[in-house]
């Protein structure tokens, strides 16, 4: 089966500019989500993704079709976001719970709790608090750990693709992921020993 992205790229390169709209609609959410989590600013994220799509369009002829298009789009978006962060020194990483903005009033507090059919209501409440604290802990992670963590755990990208997008080796990405998780566990284990302490004891 032919990759729909490749088909669209071919159509755009053949002169059908409007076909690029399919690419935008297909990828804008995930790129926006990444940019938003890195900058913590909706307008900035929108601007980054818009710039990324313009860059993608102008570089389409250079795209190597043997590679993953989404990964290529991630690479471009990450580079633009990194430059912006460096330039404007925006190094905030907002907790996920505070993502709601004016255009999406219902988004506040809509983050779902982990599915656990065996848990009691009390357990679910505890899970919600855990996630909130997790988000705050993530916001305290160093920048070089946040990006792989978000791409791996929130966007479901394999380490190999993250490595390619970030210009690292897969081992380096795995190491950063490990360090990020370890740091988060150390941060959270005092409040949630039932989740983490056993593992930490074993590790230590």
């Amino acid at each position, binding site marked *: 089966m032919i990759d729909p992205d490749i088909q669209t790229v071919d159509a755009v390169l053949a002169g059908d500019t409007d076909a690029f709209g399919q690419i935008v609609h297909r990828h804008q959410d995930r*790129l926006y989500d990444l940019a938003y989590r890195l900058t913590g600013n909706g307008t900035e994220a929108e601007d980054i993704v818009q710039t990324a799509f*313009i860059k993608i369009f*102008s570089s389409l002829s250079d795209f190597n079709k043997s590679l993953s298009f989404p990964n290529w789009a991630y690479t471009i978006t990450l580079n633009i976001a990194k430059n912006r962060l460096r330039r404007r020194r925006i190094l905030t990483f907002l907790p996920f719970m505070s993502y709601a903005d004016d255009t999406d009033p219902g988004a506040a507090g809509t*983050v779902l709790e982990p599915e656990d059919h065996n848990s009691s209501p009390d357990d679910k409440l505890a899970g919600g608090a855990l996630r909130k604290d*997790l988000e705050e802990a993530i916001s305290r992670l160093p920048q070089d750990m946040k990006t792989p963590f978000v791409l791996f755990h929130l966007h479901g990208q394999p380490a190999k693709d993250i490595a390619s997008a970030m210009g690292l080796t897969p081992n380096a990405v795995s190491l950063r992921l490990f360090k990020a*998780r370890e740091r988060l*566990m150390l941060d959270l284990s005092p409040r949630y020993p039932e989740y983490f302490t056993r593992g930490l004891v074993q590790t230590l």
Partner: protein
Amino acid sequence: MDSNNMEKIFNDLCSNIEKKKCPDLWPQVRLAITPAQTAHIKYRAFRVTAFATAALAVVLCIPGVAQTIKDRLARIFSSQYSVKLPDSPEMTGNLVSTDGEMCELRSGGTILQVKVSSFGEKAVKIEAFVFKEQDVSGKPVRKVIAKPIIIGLIGRPLEMRVRNADSAEFILKMTPSERDKKDYSAALIPQYLPETLSRTDAIKSEVLDIEAMYWAWRITGIKDMTYSDLEKDSRSWVMSPEFRKTLCDKVHGVIASGKSRPLTADEEKQRTDSIRQLSTLPRTGK
């Protein structure tokens, strides 16, 4: 705990966090990638009153322009521009900006920010942000009216229009070009209206001794800058080159005499008053 267990725990915790929904970017992207050099954008929120100012004063702010950034510059753009606001005559000028630097034009309560950024070797990305400034509880608050973006070729004129439902129209025309980095120090000297420059020098002349004493004390007493810093930074100040030299010579003289001292309260007040007067003068580019 092994790595796989840690991975599973965080996968579980993060699995139900939804992705942030992005507003549809296609209309703006389409506008930017369309080959046409003219963009027509309609915005409902755009109001005639925003641009209908009787006394027009266009002010170009220069955020962060300093010689110290020269070495870090990638590209410098120099763009001939003209701005046409409803019920106002067309204004022209030359916008010199570094790659990605935001410049600001003001007309009464309406503010236009323009950012020129690299877009490949032969093109630039022009981003405009139109704001309306209002007083809310005594504080100025900016409301975004429009954010058009256009890609232009270097050396080719382009036109950007923002139109509201009442057909009131804002038009920005630009011809972006690129300058050599070596020209940057020259570009630091703002191109102001001649009458503005003469009034600036006149106001500064009245407090020349105070100004010289202020900077001499900063250099010798507070020691948060050097004389060469003063010479470099003063290139971006609003004053004629002749007056700049006079001031620098005066500062040098005070330092050499060893008589530098902090300003008295009265001198501080005079200096503050002169700065307040300067801030009211119109400027039209740099």
